[in-house]
């Protein structure tokens, strides 16, 4: 008997992964409208997928990779620098400490932002992140190290 995980319904995928995808896309894109579009595109790609997944972890990793690629499409389409919508951010994070923390993360370049988010927020390991983003574990470690350093500099500069 196959233990493959079949494609779930629209509601199931939003219930299980909606917040994760929204958080990731929001951190990557900096505003709610673009994040919603990227989540929508990701879920539509998921629902049109014909094959199932090896297991739930495979499904989650596939969704993260697809969301990352959708965010990249938005970057390419806009052909300009990302705009962080501070109003959207304040609405989601009314607490100033949280706001400063996420604002610092969002000000990092894309490649560091993604790796830091997957490692610290979603709890993925270096090897798992390497598989998701298609890089070597040592490249992930380097990005984590540089990202951490950059965050530390922002914290010191802003006096958090």
């Amino acid at each position, binding site marked *: 008997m196959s233990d493959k995980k079949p494609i779930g319904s*629209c509601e199931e995928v939003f219930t299980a992964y909606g917040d994760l995808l929204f958080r990731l896309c929001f951190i990557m894109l900096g505003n709610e409208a673009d994040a919603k579009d990227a989540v929508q595109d990701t879920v539509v790609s998921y629902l049109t997928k014909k094959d199932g997944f090896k297991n739930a972890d495979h499904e989650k990793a596939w969704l993260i990779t697809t969301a990352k690629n959708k965010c990249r499409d938005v970057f390419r389409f806009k052909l300009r620098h990302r705009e962080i919508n501070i109003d959207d951010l304040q609405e989601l994070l009314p607490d100033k400490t949280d706001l400063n923390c996420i604002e610092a993360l969002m000000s990092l370049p894309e490649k560091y932002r993604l790796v830091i988010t997957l490692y610290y*927020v979603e709890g993925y390991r270096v090897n798992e992140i390497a598989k998701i983003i298609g890089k070597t574990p040592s490249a992930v470690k380097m990005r984590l190290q540089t990202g951490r350093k950059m965050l530390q500099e922002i914290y010191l500069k802003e006096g958090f």
Partner: protein
Amino acid sequence: MNHENLKISAQKIIMSDETKKELIKKCEKIMEVKKMNKKNSIVKHAVIIAVVSACLCCTAAGAAYHGFFKDIFRYDGAVVGTKYEQATNEIKVSVTAYSGKLTVVAEAVEPSAFPYAAFDNMNLNDYKIVDSNGKTVIDSLPAETSDYADGKAEIIIPFQNIENGDYKLIINSFVGESKGDQPLVISGEWEIDFSF
């Protein structure tokens, strides 16, 4: 502040229930359109095969055609919208001309069918009016929908300072609108002769 705080702060970024419901609705609608598009594409292919194998004449095949949805692609291949094509047999058009006004009545043959059932309004998109010499006298001037209900739209084209004579209205597309959705362009070929 340390990096571990990131997790606590970031996990407060969640989708509101309202946003979740809105996105679920949108995704389901896109999937419905995609399924319908696929279904229509199969029907279209089946019709073509039937035409080829049975050697039916073109007129008979044309009558069997239905409209179909088609994706609009961006430069990088991503789908950015949908249009509806080959709707000639799905919308009946009639025209009344009087005192500086041209009233076009566009009526969906099956108003309860998708996409017509979803519209709140329907208007002309790409059209022109030519005189008996073939000269264009009006080209896609903004028209106004005075009434829309049950797939039937009454559209008024401002038609002033035009000499009396015979004219032809050529419509290449309509546009259907529903609240919260991107307008849907419905393409086809409609030609109606009228005198003014």
